């Protein structure tokens, strides 16, 4: 039997879909809000929940922030999904004043509600509306040297994104009005703006690769400041 993995139970996320995705891969997933699990679990998943501020308040109320910060900083095998990626940042336009985990020194911004109209004469500039949230499948361009990421199509449901690649991380990118971080990775950590659990066979293959290779990725290339 493969080692079970732990999922931080945040109550409002689409946890059932995340659990089902691991079940299809034959991997047992355990929901947890325990600080020691978050600190010590061989593999941990942080799924997306509602809003940035509310999610941070929930993690703080459960006393999980220091443990999460430590394991992410150390590059221990951790998979963050959707809002889970955004929580790595220092702050977000979505919840002014709320502090993120701060593992990445970047901030989260809203996807643009307007974009330059395409196919217009060069001297004409016209802004056209763009739908937000971004709902649907968009192309992911994987970076060279990635341990986990490959090119493909992923399912998104987001209004906010990381536009800047955090220092020391490798990023896959997607374009929706702007180019943003589709996913970032460092050592055993993979954080996806899209939903791998809803991204068909491509997403399932990504989950499996992260499960299989994140421990070695952590051991072979520990992040700076690892303990």
């Amino acid at each position, binding site marked *: 039997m493969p080692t079970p993995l732990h999922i931080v139970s945040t109550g409002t996320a689409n946890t*059932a*879909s995340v659990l*089902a995705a691991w079940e299809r891969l034959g991997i047992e997933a355990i929901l947890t809000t325990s600080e020691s699990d978050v600190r010590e679990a061989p593999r941990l998943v942080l799924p997306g929940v509602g809003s940035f501020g509310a999610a941070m308040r929930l993690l703080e109320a459960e006393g999980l922030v220091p443990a999460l910060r430590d394991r992410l900083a150390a590059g221990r095998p951790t998979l963050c999904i959707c809002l889970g990626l955004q929580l790595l940042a220092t702050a977000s336009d979505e919840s002014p004043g709320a502090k993120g985990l701060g593992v990445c020194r970047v901030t989260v911004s809203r996807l643009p509600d307007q974009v330059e109209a395409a196919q217009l004469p060069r001297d004409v500039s016209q802004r056209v509306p763009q739908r937000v*949230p971004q709902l649907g499948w968009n192309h992911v361009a994987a970076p060279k040297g990635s341990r986990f990421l490959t090119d493909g199509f992923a399912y998104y449901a987001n*209004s906010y994104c990381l536009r800047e690649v955090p220092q020391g991380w490798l990023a896959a990118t997607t374009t*929706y009005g702007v180019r943003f971080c589709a996913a970032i990775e460092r050592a055993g950590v993979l954080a996806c703006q899209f939903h791998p659990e809803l991204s068909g066979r491509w997403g*399932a293959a990504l989950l499996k690769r992260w499960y299989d290779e994140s421990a070695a990725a952590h051991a072979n290339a520990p992040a700076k400041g690892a303990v």
Partner: protein
Amino acid sequence: MLTSRVIPCLDCRDGRVVKGVQFQGLRDTGDPVELAARYEAEGADELVILDVSATPQGRANQTDTIKRVRKVLSIPLTVGGGVRTSDDAKRLLDAGADKVGVNTAAVLDPALLTKLAERFGRQCIVIAIDAARTEPDARKRKAAGASKVPEPISWHVVIRSGEDRRPLDAIEWARNSTHLGAGEILLTSWDRDGTKAGYDLDLLRAVSSAVTVPVIASGGAAGPQHLIEALQAGADAVLAASIFHDGHYTVRQVKAALAKAGVRVRDDTVTS
């Protein structure tokens, strides 16, 4: 670049698909699980399950259906039908839905949309709107004289209960519901549903230019050309039931036709 979504829809009652499924190769044509798996394998981008059960027992079966579908489905699942409270939505999400569709209850109590969006995030909340063309008022037209100017088309919202209510303008409701908390609109043409005459393109144009959230076209599709027209009219996704259930087209054939017409669609054959 975001791709256009093709979304098969399963109407379920008491855990069974009730709209006629006629294509070959299924052991049990009424089993939502087998259909869901087949549509995903064919390249469906998302799945919608609409619960048309009217009884509490039917609703309980629905939860069980969602759980069973979730086990096999690795694409997004939207579930609608009978959502009255945020706890109803929670029950569907816990069973395995990724998005929840609300219709009648939101018309009767618009604040429900705000409650749902605050609890689950607006990307999770789909407002389902059934819109019917409003007949031009003949008396008013006569009173105004023999004007050559055609009256603008309008649509009103149709709900299953509360027919005594003042007619609600569908475009206005689409706009309001997104301000209140809906993150996506499932727009069904009451006039075209089941007719195979194509989507109501005027309705799609009117709604998609009135809102800033994605719009799913529904009602009237008989073939790929209808889907292409809807996407060109401003829809972000196209929903269809009978064209897939009838076995005339597979999802893959439809998506190939879309790609040929210049519509961007997801290539689901890339796996690693």
